């Protein structure tokens, strides 16, 4: 598992963890992000039951996890949030931000309503240690209730499954190094898992309104600098919901 700091200024920082070499072959590789502000922590898509102990052990080396006050779930998938009961067992006061439409589904993991802060379809603000993070709608990308997070200070945009890549095991870079070559690992994922070109256009417009230096997906490599705009253009021209024509 690789852990890297993406941003640090004063008491505000972003950390990423990914490329778990220990994971079973059939388990998709996931990225997990930890935002810290004034000693308080927010975990973004902390992952599944399968890799809870790896994620918890790695982040423990860098941050006092007792100070993680909240978890953000971009959507309801097991690789995103099935570890939630374990985090709550460790900290019963933990707050969990999630898309409102998934509340009655995620509670099937055994989570109680007192821990849950539903985020409406239009998004909103999450305040962490006095710092505001923007929650941007990403519905139908891929889940019907899906959210992204933008941090205006670090200019980091957490995009969930948008920008995800299914990388081969020997690909250990945390960042995209050759965009053109990288598209081969993204294309099928986006065309197969994401159904709506309309939703895509709305999301791209939202991202372009913001000053983004890093676009951080939940799977695969991170886009930095000019690769952010490159990705948006590539994504704009991709026909979503079109990767199943051969089985029609």
């Amino acid at each position, binding site marked *: 598992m690789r852990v890297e700091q993406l941003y640090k200024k004063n008491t505000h920082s972003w950390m990423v963890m990914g490329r778990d070499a220990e994971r079973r072959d059939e388990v998709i590789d996931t990225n997990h992000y930890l935002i810290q502000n004034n000693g308080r922590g927010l975990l973004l898509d902390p992952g599944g*039951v399968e890799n809870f102990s790896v994620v918890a*052990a790695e*982040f*423990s080396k860098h941050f006092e996890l007792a100070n993680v006050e909240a978890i953000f779930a971009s959507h309801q998938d097991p690789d995103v949030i099935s570890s939630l009961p374990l985090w709550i067992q*460790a900290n019963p006061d933990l707050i969990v931000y999630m898309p409102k439409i998934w509340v009655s589904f995620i509670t099937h993991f055994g989570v109680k309503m007192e821990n849950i802060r539903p985020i409406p379809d239009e998004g909103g603000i999450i305040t962490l240690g006095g710092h505001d993070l923007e929650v941007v709608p990403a519905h139908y990308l891929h889940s019907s209730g899906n959210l992204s997070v933008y941090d205006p200070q670090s200019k980091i945009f957490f995009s969930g499954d948008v920008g995800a890549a299914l990388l081969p095991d020997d690909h250990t870079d945390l960042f995209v190094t050759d965009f053109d070559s990288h598209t081969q690992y993204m294309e099928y994922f986006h065309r197969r898992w994401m159904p709506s070109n309309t939703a895509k256009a709305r999301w791209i417009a939202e991202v372009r309104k913001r000053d983004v230096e890093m676009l951080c997906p939940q799977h695969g490599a991170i886009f930095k600098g000019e690769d952010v705009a490159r990705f948006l253009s590539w994504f704009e021209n991709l026909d979503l919901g079109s990767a199943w024509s051969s089985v029609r």
Partner: protein
Amino acid sequence: MSGNLYTRKMGEEYNTIFRQCVSLNTELHKLVPLAKQMHLLSSNAVSSAARAGSEGDAFRVLTQDIQLLGDEVSECIGDTQKVIGDIVRLASNLAKLFASYMIYQDLQERLEGEETVTTVTFFEGGHHNVVEELRANNHKLSRSLAVLENLLSPIATVVKKGEYLAVCSSVEAASAGQHGVSFEAVSSMLRKLVGQLGLQSARQRSLLRDLSDAMEKQQHNQGKLLYAR
């Protein structure tokens, strides 16, 4: 026995308990149609007694007893259905909690010898909460099994009562001659139903005994693994 062996053994035991609870649930559900058939039999008994006319006074008394027996069977079966639902849910929770216990154990092993910013007590709290939930679920499951045992024990008496009633019905039907032909069918159906009830309750008692044994074994190992730490 080392911690790991206990852990493996306990994992197997939780799975065994869950499987046994599911089997018991399946067996207990087989009682539901029996209760319905008992009610149907009561109605048949009423019409048979009516058909016997003035010769059917004894049948009417027997019919009342058959109806009471049917009510007793229904009540007993209804109560067991409620309890077995809880038992399966608790057994499933136990298996799930034990998986969490294993994950926390894996985390602790990963953290051993590592320099961490997170204080050790943070995840120990989670581990402790899992152990407490395991213990609470275990107690609840043991209690529910005892309740189920109490609910199932009167079935043996009900079966005896039913057999006795079937014999009485046969005797009365034979002595009523032509008037008793219809009631003889009721008596033979009653004999068949209580026979089935007897067989099924014996199977359920045996499953419950196995389950209680498995619980006892599991609690013994749980004591060694969870509380010796």
